């Protein structure tokens, strides 16, 4: 009667498993949403702060000309006496070249290296005395690692009628 004994031993297996299934799921139905909710409630807040950088030169008060080109907002600024001039560049989107150098180009032979651009924000470059009161110039943005011109932006002094 081995078969007989076997059957008796196995009695109610389905029932037992079904009961365990139900208890497991009732348990999960309580524990899992609580744990999930705890996790969702602990999603961290964004950590924000205005980045701290070194001071940059104050902007000169008078706008000679301005232009928007790609990710750059460019202003050509001067003081009231016409003794100092600046190029202001505001970067609106992250730069995606390994090097972004700005050069003021009066003509092929006469250029002034303004500097290198990095993270987003304002950059102000003071023009050499030899570059004051020009009728216009080109700002050349180039990648000096890949040796390519990224963009060239002409700035012209408006003609006063």
């Amino acid at each position: 009667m081995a078969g007989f004994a076997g059957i008796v031993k196995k009695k109610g297996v389905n029932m037992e498993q079904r009961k365990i299934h139900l208890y497991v799921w009732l348990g999960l139905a309580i524990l899992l949403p609580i744990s999930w909710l705890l996790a969702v409630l602990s999603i961290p807040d964004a950590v924000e702060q205005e980045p701290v950088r070194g001071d940059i030169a104050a902007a000169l008060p008078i706008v000679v000309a301005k232009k928007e080109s790609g990710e750059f907002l460019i202003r050509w600024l001067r003081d009231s006496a016409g003794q100092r001039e600046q190029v202001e560049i505001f970067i609106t989107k992250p730069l995606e070249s390994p090097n972004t150098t700005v050069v003021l180009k009066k003509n092929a032979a006469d250029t002034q290296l303004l500097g290198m651009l990095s993270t987003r924000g304002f950059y102000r470059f003071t023009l050499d005395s030899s570059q004051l009161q020009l009728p216009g110039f080109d700002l050349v943005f180039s990648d000096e690692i890949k040796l390519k011109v990224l963009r060239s932006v002409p700035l012209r002094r408006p003609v006063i009628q």
Partner: protein
Amino acid sequence: MSLSYDPIHWTRYKRRYDKVMAAILAAFLLLFVATQLLFFPEITIETLVIRATGTLGFLMLHVILVIGPLCRLQPRFLPLLYNRRHLGVTMFFMAAIHGVFSLVQFHANGNTDWLTSLFTSNTAYGSVQRFPFQSLGAGALLILFLMAATSHDFWLKNLGSRWWKWLHMGVYLAYALLVMHVALGILQFEKSPLLIGISGLGMSMVLGFHVAAGLKQARADSQARRKKVGAEDSPFVFACNVADIPENRAKMLLIADQQIAVFKYDQRISAVHNRCKHQGGPLSEGKILDGCITCPWHGYQYLPHNGQSPPPFVEKVATYAVRVEAGKVYVNPTPYPEGTAQIPAEIA
């Protein structure tokens, strides 16, 4: 029911099931990748693979977990259940790709080996916010691996259907681990209410279906319970009225802890143990086809009067003595050895 084990015992149904499954999976991956590249072309290929396979695997796990209770609530969906193993094994492969890519991406090529890195880079187990979510994913992947590796009738036979079922209940633990892997992982980074909503909805669906099906089953089990009343000297217990059993179908009864499937066919009544020898499927939810009780899960068959599979098959279930008096069915809940022939009760 064969005694040799092919890698997969192909049927036309399985082929169609797999084709539909493959088409849906391919469409999902294609849509995911295309949308990703259209809206977020900056994504790296590794992140794309990790996110696509992770999302698909987790979605598949939801479908897999809902199919079971759905079929218990509405048996018309049973065909979805038959080939669920293929869905499960495919889901494991998705999870494995997700896991391996993540391991290589985040842990390989560093100053410790990848496994040490996995468990030591973040050890803030005491914090909810900083909890090392990757170890939850690794635990779930291990469970899914064991399940996928044993997802074959060879293991079912050698482990025994009871142990096999227990092992495969590990999927519930894997699911819980994965819900938390997602909640403590990508949700913490993406913070999107939409993603939180989708994952919450998925969890509610799985939990809701299982609890609803479990409660329904518990109610049905309690209705099936019969107690012995009347003469002490008779072993027979009232089961049901003959009219309660549809033709060629059964009624499940619980008498003295025995689950008994009482079948009506050809103006006769026979009773066998409710549990199929293959995977423990409920024979009472089956049907008499070609004179055989046919299990609704995988079609294993037994002759109703002796509980034996028709030759050449060798499976056998226990049988019970049955009597019919005045339109009422009585069953002796003491089982006879598996395959013992009984005289079916004639419906007068």
